[in-house]
C-alpha cells in the first residue's frame, strides 16, 4: 500500500482536467468516465458524533446546532472531557445516618481542566444535565428579528399589491387554469386571509440608544502585573463565539461538534460514486466506485538513467483490478483530440465563459433504478457539469508508442497463492511484454527525454492508456445478456525522476 503514502508519481487525468493519483479517483459506471473529488457533487449523508459514535438524524442535529448532547469537550485544550466520579460528604454532616453522596464532575485528561475549576456544581447523574448558558441578548435579538420579518413582509405585500394592480390592466383569462385561487376567493366573496405575521407590526421596536459613557480601562491595569495563565488565548475565545471569555474562569464546557459522512454524486448522471454505510462504526461503503477497482493501475518498475536526448528504457507494471479480461493499448497523447480541442476552445474564449456549464438533458429515469433513487432525484435539481480545465502538465520526454497491445487476464484472488507454473497463451509481442503473472504484466517502453530540459529537471512522460472496460450493470438485471464492453481512454502522466548529465 506504499503508493498511497508515497509521492504521487503516476497521475491520471480526471475528466475535469485535474491530475490525481488513482487512489483519489472515482469511476462512474454509468457515464464511463473518471471523476475526482473536485468534479463530483458532495452531499452530507449522515451526522454522527466522533466520540460516542452515535448517529443523529439530521433534523435532530439541526435542532441541536450540530452538537452532540452527551459529549463535551474541554474549553481549554479542545480534547474530550471525561466524567469523573467522586464522593463528597453528606449534605448535613451532623446527621450520623447520612451516607456520603456520589457526585460526578467533568475532567480533562490532557490539561487537567475540571468543571470544578470554574465553579460548575457537581452533578448527581453521570449522563449530564450540565447547566447550559443562554445568550444574554436573546430577548432583544428575537424582538429585532420579528420586527424585521414583519417589516419586510409588509414591504412584500405592498409590492404584491402593486403588481396586482398592474396586472389588472392586462388581466387575461387565457392562463392555463384560467382562474387563480385568489380570484375564486374573490368571486365567492371571501376576503383575503390576513397574514399572521403582520400582526406583530403593531408593536413598533425602539432603536438602540447610543451612550456617551464607555467602558474605561481599570486603573490597576497600569500597576498590577498580569497573569498570563488567567487570560484566555484567541483560540479559546473563538471556540465560544457568543461569549468569547477573556479570563479562564469563564471557560465552560462545549458540546462536541458533530461530524458528517459524505456521499459523492456524479454531476452528469446523478448516480452516486461513493456512498458510506449509515452506521458510524462502519468504515465500509454502500456504493464505492473507486477508480482503483475499475481502471488498470500503473506502477513504475524501473527506469534507466535519464539523459537529455538519449533513449532510456522504462518498465511499467500494469495491474488489472477487474473480474474481466482487458486489452491495454498505449496511444499517443494526441489520440484524445476531443479533450484537447475543448481546452483550446476555452482558452480562446473570454475568461468569463471558461466555466460555462454544459447544458444537460433532463434525466430520463429508467425503471431499473430503485425507488429510493427515483425519489431522491425528484427532490433535487439536476446538477450541471462544468467544462473541463486545460491540463497544464508539461511533457518532457518523447515516448515511442508500441504498435502492439497486450492482454491483462482478470483478477483472481486465489491465483496469488498458486505457485504452479502458469501457461499463458497470449500472443505477446516479446519486445513489449517482459513479464507476466496472473493479472499483472510488465511492459517495456522506450523514452527519450527532451533536449530542452535542464540538468536536474523533473522528467514527465505522458501517454493515453486505452483499455477495454466491461460494464457489468446491465448483466445484473438481465442475466442472459452479454456484458457490454467498451473502450475507455485515460491520459496518464508519470514523473520519472530528475534529468542527469547529458552523457559521460
Amino acid at each position: 500500500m506504499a503508493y498511497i503514502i508515497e509521492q504521487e508519481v503516476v497521475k491520471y487525468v480526471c475528466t475535469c482536467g485535474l491530475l490525481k493519483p488513482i487512489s483519489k479517483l472515482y469511476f462512474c459506471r454509468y457515464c464511463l468516465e473518471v471523476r475526482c473529488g473536485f468534479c463530483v457533487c458532495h452531499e452530507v449523508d449522515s451526522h454522527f458524533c466522533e466520540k460516542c459514535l452515535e448517529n443523529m438524524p439530521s433534523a435532530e442535529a439541526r435542532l441541536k446546532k450540530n452538537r452532540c448532547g452527551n459529549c463535551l469537550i474541554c474549553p481549554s485544550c479542545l480534547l474530550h472531557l471525561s466524567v469523573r466520579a467522586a464522593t463528597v460528604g453528606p449534605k448535613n454532616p451532623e446527621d450520623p445516618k447520612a451516607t456520603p453522596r456520589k457526585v460526578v464532575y467533568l475532567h480533562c485528561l490532557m490539561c487537567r481542566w475540571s468543571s470544578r475549576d470554574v465553579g460548575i456544581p457537581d452533578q448527581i447523574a453521570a449522563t449530564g444535565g450540565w447547566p447550559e448558558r443562554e445568550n444574554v441578548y436573546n430577548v432583544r435579538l428575537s424582538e429585532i428579528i420579528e420586527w424585521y420579518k414583519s417589516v419586510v413582509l409588509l414591504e412584500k405585500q405592498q409590492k404584491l399589491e402593486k403588481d396586482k394592480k398592474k396586472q389588472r390592466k392586462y388581466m387575461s383569462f387565457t392562463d392555463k387554469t384560467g382562474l387563480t385561487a385568489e380570484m375564486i376567493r374573490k368571486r365567492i366573496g371571501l376576503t383575503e386571509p390576513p397574514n399572521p405575521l403582520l400582526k406583530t407590526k403593531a408593536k413598533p421596536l425602539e432603536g438602540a440608544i447610543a451612550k456617551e459613557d464607555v467602558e474605561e480601562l481599570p486603573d490597576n491595569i497600569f500597576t498590577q502585573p498580569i497573569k498570563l495563565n488567567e487570560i484566555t488565548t484567541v483560540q479559546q475565545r473563538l471556540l465560544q463565539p457568543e461569549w468569547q471569555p477573556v479570563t479562564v474562569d469563564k471557560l465552560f464546557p462545549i458540546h462536541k461538534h458533530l461530524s458528517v459522512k459524505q456521499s459523492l454524486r456524479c454531476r452528469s448522471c446523478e448516480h452516486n460514486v461513493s456512498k458510506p454505510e449509515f452506521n458510524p462504526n462502519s468504515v465500509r461503503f454502500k456504493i464505492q466506485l473507486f477508480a482503483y477497482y475499475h481502471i488498470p493501475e500503473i506502477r513504475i518498475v524501473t527506469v534507466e538513467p535519464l539523459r537529455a536526448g538519449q533513449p532510456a528504457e522504462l518498465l511499467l507494471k500494469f495491474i488489472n483490478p477487474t473480474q474481466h479480461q482487458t486489452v491495454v493499448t498505449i496511444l499517443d497523447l494526441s489520440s484524445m483530440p476531443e479533450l484537447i480541442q475543448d481546452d483550446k476552445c476555452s482558452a480562446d474564449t473570454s475568461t468569463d465563459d471558461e466555466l460555462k456549464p454544459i447544458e444537460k438533458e433532463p434525466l430520463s429515469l429508467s425503471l431499473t433504478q430503485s425507488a429510493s433513487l427515483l425519489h431522491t432525484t425528484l427532490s433535487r435539481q439536476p446538477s450541471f457539469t462544468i467544462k473541463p480545465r486545460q491540463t497544464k502538465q508539461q511533457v518532457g520526454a518523447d515516448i515511442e508508442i508500441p504498435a502492439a497491445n497486450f492482454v491483462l487476464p482478470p483478477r483472481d484472488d486465489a491465483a496469488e497463492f498458486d505457485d504452479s507454473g502458469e501457461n499463458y497463451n497470449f500472443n505477446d509481442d516479446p519486445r513489449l511484454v517482459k513479464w507476466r503473472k496472473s493479472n499483472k504484466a510488465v511492459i517495456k517502453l522506450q523514452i527519450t527525454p527532451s533536449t530542452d530540459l535542464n540538468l536536474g529537471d523533473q522528467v514527465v512522460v505522458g501517454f493515453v492508456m486505452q483499455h477495454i472496460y466491461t460494464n457489468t450493470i446491465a448483466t445484473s438485471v438481465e442475466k442472459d445478456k452479454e456484458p457490454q464492453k467498451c473502450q475507455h481512454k485515460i491520459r496518464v502522466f508519470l514523473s520519472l525522476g530528475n534529468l542527469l548529465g547529458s552523457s559521460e
Partner: protein
Amino acid sequence: MTSRNNIKIIAGAIVCHEAKLRGDVTIGAGTIMHPCAFVNAEAGPIIIGEKCLVEEQSKITHRVPFDRVEQKNVPVLIIGSNNVFEVGCNVEACRIGDNNIFESKCFVGNKVTVTNGCIIGAGCYITEEQVLPENTIIYGENCLQREALCGPGQQTLQMDTLSKMLPNYHRIRKPNLKS
C-alpha cells in the same frame, strides 16, 4: 564521577533491587521505586521524600547547570512527598516540592524549580529557567501552561496495590534506616 554509592532507605520504602541508584541517595518512607528506575546523584546528594512513586525507566538526575559548576558547596536536591514520576520521565529539576506529577517522557531541565501541585504533561520539554508557580499544569506539544484551582489528587489506591504486589514478584532492598 564514580563516587561511592551511599544509599539510605528509610523503613517503609519499597525499592526494587533492579532500581539503579548512584551516589548519595536517601529514600523516604512509603516511597515506591520500580525496577529500572534510575536515580543519579551525580553532582550532589538526592533526598526523596515520603510516598513518592518512581516508575520504570524514569530518570531523576542531580546535575548542576554548567554555569554553576564552579560553585563550591553543591546544593542537595530535595524532592518532596507524594510526587509521581511516570514511565520514562527525565527530571533534572533543581528543587521539587510536594504533590507533583511528571508524566511519561517529559523532560524537566536543571534550571527549573518545581513547587507544589504541578503537573508536567506527557512529552513536555522544559528547560527555560523558571520557578513554576503552585498548581501549574504544562501540557501539549507547545508546552502550554495553565493554573489549576487545586493540585492533583493523591494516588493512594495505586500505591497500596503496588506496595502489596511488588514484593511478591521482585527482590526488595532492605531498608537501612529507621524512620
